[in-house]
Each structure stands twice: as C-alpha cells, then as structure tokens.
C-alpha cells in the first residue's frame, strides 16, 4: 500500500503498550490520559512539528469484533457441522482473536519525507502539562522497548519498526507544504475581503488599493502574514 501521495506522506504507527500497572493504573490508561490531556489547536505539540496536516493519537484496546464469517457461500458451514455434537460444531467455528497488548496508535499526514518528519517530531514536539514541559518521549514512555530510545536516531528506528503500511490520507489537504497551504488560505480569505470592500470602484482606484493590499499580504512571504499551524480563530 502506498504511503506516499505526491509530496504527502501517510504515517500510521502502532506501538505496543507494556502490560503492567503502576499504583493501580495500567500503562495503557496512563498513556491514554496523557493523550487526552494534550493541548489542542495552536498549543498542540503537533502544531510545532513542521508540516503536519492532520494527526491523531489514540489507544487501540482490542480488535473490533465484526461478527462470525458470513454464511452466504455455497453451503452453510454451521449447518453442515450441526450433524455433529454442539461442542464439535462450536469448535469448528473460527476463533475470535484478541490483541496481546494494547497499542498506542499515531496516525499523521504530512508534507515531505518520513526521516525529516521524524526528526521534527523528536526535536519540536513540546508542550506543557501540569506546569511541566514535555517532549515526545512522554507519550511513548510506556510502550514496549521504548526505554532504549535515547536519541533521535533510535527514535526514528523505533517508529519505523512500529510503522504500519496503510494509505490513510486526509481528504482535506493538497500535497503542498503546510506553510504554502496556510498562506494560500490566508490569501484567499484576505482577497475575498478586499473584493467585498472595493467592488464597484474605478479600475484606477482598485489598482491603487490592490498594490497596497499586495504590500500588506506579501504573497511571496510564507512566514507572515499567514495562519499559524493549528490556529483555530482569526
């Protein structure tokens, strides 16, 4: 399955969480709480990781039970086995699978290549929780073998080992860099305001105003003025 779509990359990571309990709380629940406590919008650590289009974190408790396999094939499996004893019939049914541990799932869509993005996660992921500054290790802390992750290279290796090959792309983004997209959004909104204010004026007036407008919005300057990553209100 392709994890690249043009310049966009889809990253899906499943990291097993240790089966264990600290002070009556499981590692999975500690990790879940840390995920739920992450600040959102501008304060989200993901807003600081360069080029993140959209990302989410959640705990996968178990596989989802869909139902027994369908019985619309040529013959009905359970009907055939019903000539045997009930326990034989039940033994013949497919086993219901469960996960051996709970998983931390991280799913992200971003611009560019994986290595560069993972460096960004290691270096830029930062936020305050209960007055303490936290980095990316705080979320992954209780995942199996994460204690060996002590530098950026080992973090990259770890994430790649947990990577799950799935083309989960967010359908609300192009494959341009985040800065490019945010600037485009900003320009579109500012331009529609400009049009509303200046419609009906003479061509000369509009041209003058447009020059001033361009000076203000600086279309070539991707840094500013623009929307900030994660910004939720004007």
């Amino acid at each position, binding site marked *: 399955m392709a994890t690249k779509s043009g310049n966009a990359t889809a990253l899906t990571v499943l990291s097993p969480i240790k089966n264990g309990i600290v002070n009556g709380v499981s590692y999975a629940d500690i990790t879940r709480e840390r995920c739920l406590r992450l600040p959102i919008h501008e304060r989200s650590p993901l807003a600081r990781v360069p080029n993140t289009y959209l990302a989410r974190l959640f705990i996968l408790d178990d596989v989802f039970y869909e139902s027994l396999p369908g019985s619309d094939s040529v013959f009905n499996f359970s009907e055939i086995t019903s000539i045997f004893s009930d326990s034989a019939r039940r033994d013949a049914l497919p086993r219901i699978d469960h996960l051996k541990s709970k998983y931390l799932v991280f799913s992200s869509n971003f611009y560019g290549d994986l290595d560069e993005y993972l460096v960004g996660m290691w270096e830029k992921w930062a936020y305050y929780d209960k007055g303490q500054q936290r980095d990316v290790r705080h979320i992954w802390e209780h995942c199996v073998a994460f204690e060996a992750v002590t530098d950026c290279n080992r973090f990259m290796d770890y994430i790649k080992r947990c990577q799950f090959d799935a083309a989960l792309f967010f359908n609300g983004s192009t494959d341009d860099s985040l800065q490019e997209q945010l600037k485009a959004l900003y320009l579109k909104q500012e331009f*529609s305001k400009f*049009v*509303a204010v200046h*419609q*009906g004026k003479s061509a000369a007036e509009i041209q003058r105003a447009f020059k001033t407008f361009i000076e203000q919005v600086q279309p070539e300057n991707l840094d500013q003025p623009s929307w900030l990553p994660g910004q939720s209100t004007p």
Partner: protein
Amino acid sequence: MVTWAVNALTLPSVEINSKKFCNQIYEGVIMAQNLDLTDIQGNIVKAYGSFGFLKARYLFLSIADGDRGRAFVGAMTTKVTSAERWDKKSSPLVTTNIGFTFSGLQALELPTASLIGFPEDFVMGMKKRKAILGDDGPSDPENWDKIWQETAHIWMSINGKSIEAIEERYQWIVEQIEASGGGVTLLTGHRGEKGEEDLPYQDASVLYDQDGKPSAKEHFGYTDGISDPVFEGQTNNQARVLGRGKLTSTGGWEPLATGEFILGHIDEAMEYPNTAPRPDLLSNNGTYMVYRKLHENVGSFNRFLDEQSESFPGSKEMLAAKFSGRWRDNGAPVVNAPDDASKTEWDKKYAAADPAAQRRMLTDFNYNDDISGAKCPLSAHTRRINPRGSLEFGVKDAFDTPGALVNRRRILRRGLPYGIVKDASKDDGNHGIIFMVINVDIKRQFEFVQQQWINFGNDFKQGNDRDVLLGNQSAQNPGRVVIQVEPGSGKPPHFVTNIPRLVETRGGDYFFIPSITALKMIAGGIIDPT
C-alpha cells in the same frame, strides 16, 4: 384455524393464469401506494392553505394528570381531521390536529418500552438542539415568547375557512380543557399584536393584498410555499409531481418515497424509517413535526435590500430575487428569469399560459444549465433548501440518481404568516411565519437542512456563507454571499456583504403526530409494546 383450513381445502379448483395473476398483483396491489388516508392526520398530507383554510390558531397545553390527560386526548380524537380526500363541497369549515412532545408522551404515561424507542432529537426537544439549529443571540431560547419558558406537552392546530369557525372549535376545546378538572391546562405566554405577552394562543393568517385579496406572500414580500415536496400516495395528479418530487436521471420527476414523511412506510433508502417507537401501531402512519415561530426583521430587510441594491448591477427586485431564487411578485424561478429583461419575457409568457402551464413554469425546472450559478446563485434560498440535481455539479450520472444527496433531506413545509407589519421601517412588533415541518427523521431532514444548508455553504462550494434570508448572521459575524456571473463574460461576480440577522426564532419544539389509531390507543392507555 380449522375452519379456515377446511374452507381452503374445499375451494373449487381453478386454473390460475400465473402471468396474468402476477400482473394483477403488480398493477393492483404492489405498484400503487394506497395510504390509509382516514388514519393519517390531515396536516401531514395536506397544506390546508391551498384548500381555502386561510387562518389558523395554535394551542399548547400541559398535562398534570395521566388519566384526565388521556380522557382529554380521547375527546380531541373525535374531532381530529384525517387526510381523507376532499372536494370543494365535502371539505369541512374547520380542521383540528394534535401532536405531543416527548414530555407530553411521558405525561400521558406511555410505557417505558415505547418511550425509549423515540429518537434523541425528539427526546431532547428544540431548545436543547440550539447549537445544531444556530439558535443563538436574539434566537436563543431565553429570548423566546414567554410560553416557551414552560414545558409544552400537547400542540393543537385549528385551521379554518373563517375566524368564526376557528373560534367555535377553539371554544369547544376550551370547554374540554375545563371539563378535565385541571388535568390539562392551556398554556399562555404568546406575544401578540398589541404588545401582549400572555396570549393563550398563536393566531396565524394569510396576508391580504391592497385589494383585500388573500395572497401567498410572507412579510418580506416573497411568494411562499410553491414547491412543497410530493410523495407517493399523496396525489394521483402527475402534474403536481413536476419539480416537487425527485429528479430522475432522464430529467423527469417521480414522487418521493412515502417513508420520508410518514412512519411505517418505505423511505428513499428502501428501508422503514428507524425513528419509529414500538409497537408498530403507535408509530405507523404517524410522523414528526417541527414547530417554529420565526420573527421577520422587516425593517432590517428593507434597509439592507435598499443599501445593497445601490451597488448591484440590476434592479432592487432582481437582487431580492437572487437572494431567494424566486422573484417576489409572482414566484418566477430565477434560473429561468435571471435578470430584469428575461423576467419581463417570462411574465409575458406566464400571462399567456393556461393554469396548468403556469404551474409548470413555477415548479418544473432544474439547474442543469446553471451549474456555475450565474442564473440562480449557488447561495439562493430555494436552491439551498432544494438543490434538485445540482449537487452533481454538472457531472452527469455522478450518483445513482441526480437527487442522491437531496432526496433524503426533503421536508414538507406547513404553516402560515402571523401578525401584521405596522411600520415597514422597523423590526419590532409581532410578525413573521409560523413555520412547521413534517418529516420522519428530524435530525436527518430538518436539522440537516438548517445546519448544513441554511447556516453553512460548503455543500454548494460556498465555504461558510449562509442563507441570506434565514442564516444566523450577527453583528459580530455578518453574512456574505456571492452572486455569480457567467464564467468568461468579463463581468465581476457581485459580493453581498454585511448581511444582518433577518429572521429570529421566537419559540418552538418537536412534536410526534400520531395516527388516529395511535391517538385512540394513547387515549385508552392501551399502548402495548410487548
């Protein structure tokens, strides 16, 4: 059982022509949707206004005691108007219909096993759905008529051909309320014409023109209620389906599935609606109704239209038409009369047409030749609430059927204007529309339209632009819409800006409208969900 078996066995042997037999079944039974019109309340199937009922009175009641409440419902049931077909001679002078909020059904002591089958939107009621509906600022429930500070249990409507007929039925209901010995109370607190705050009923009436003739207009001057949906079993008249049913891939029209509007019938997904409580006898032939008192800020509308038309390249009436999708004077669809010159031509053709052709001119159209919105803007009110096939955006056969994104979002509109505008330069006073919606799934139909198509514009590629007339614009967040022009024409699109809140919610709730069978069972306390 034995008797039946013997009779069956002793039936004379007849040779059955299976093909003919099947055809008879298809033609006689399966294809035709025969509704139990005498079991369905009349307001579901009929827009009373078009039968000469020009006035209405709406009452809201509270139930204090289950036994006496049920006895009252029993008395009302004797006068409830069914959907039985009428001709001019057989139609009554006055109609009566009844519905219940979820609290009302609790007060009537429906079994818990039935109550838990009602959908969450209905259980919550309109006030608690305010974030979905955009009822904020002046539309916030705290600013509604005083009556809505109490809990309404029963809604009743009286539609009449004269105010005398309404008054007579009203007095009869009041007598029954008195006879309930406090079991049922008529709630007061409707705002009235003379500044009253505590009226015991809400009156509504068609508006009359300068010559005193009844009109189909509302207070902003638009002609209302032209293209109400048509569903299977409602009419045998194919002409009424044009532009009002669902669009087919060949450009024709078919009635919508009954189950979009009446419980117990197949809907557009070929399923029974999943909003029906148990048992079937409680829900079959019933439906849900949304009641909303919508105040119209006539002064703001007139000022806004005047201001905006100064910079608009066209007449003021043309701009008003672009807001709505129909011209104010006669309801001409803007898509077929997109500017002042073409409107003049349309009017000439309309004047020369016979009544059937006139009706077609008003309803039988689509947006296939106007994908860009150059004729009828993508944000126009009637295009928003009934996009017909336009959500395919010109990609023929993009979906199984051109109305795939529309057919599950249709609502029947009932109701009438209320109040009189005494000063067209002011907003205050008591005038607007009593807006009632019939649908089987409030969340999927009414609330979706209100949230996504009135207060948002993304489905029409209009970002977060809202409906000019009904959107919940505010001073902090004024509205904006674009009036498109023909691509490549060299003309700039026109931006309408600073749109104020033109319509405010003044009250309302969600009601269950049971069948007449269900009414009798509710009254008898014999609803059995087992």
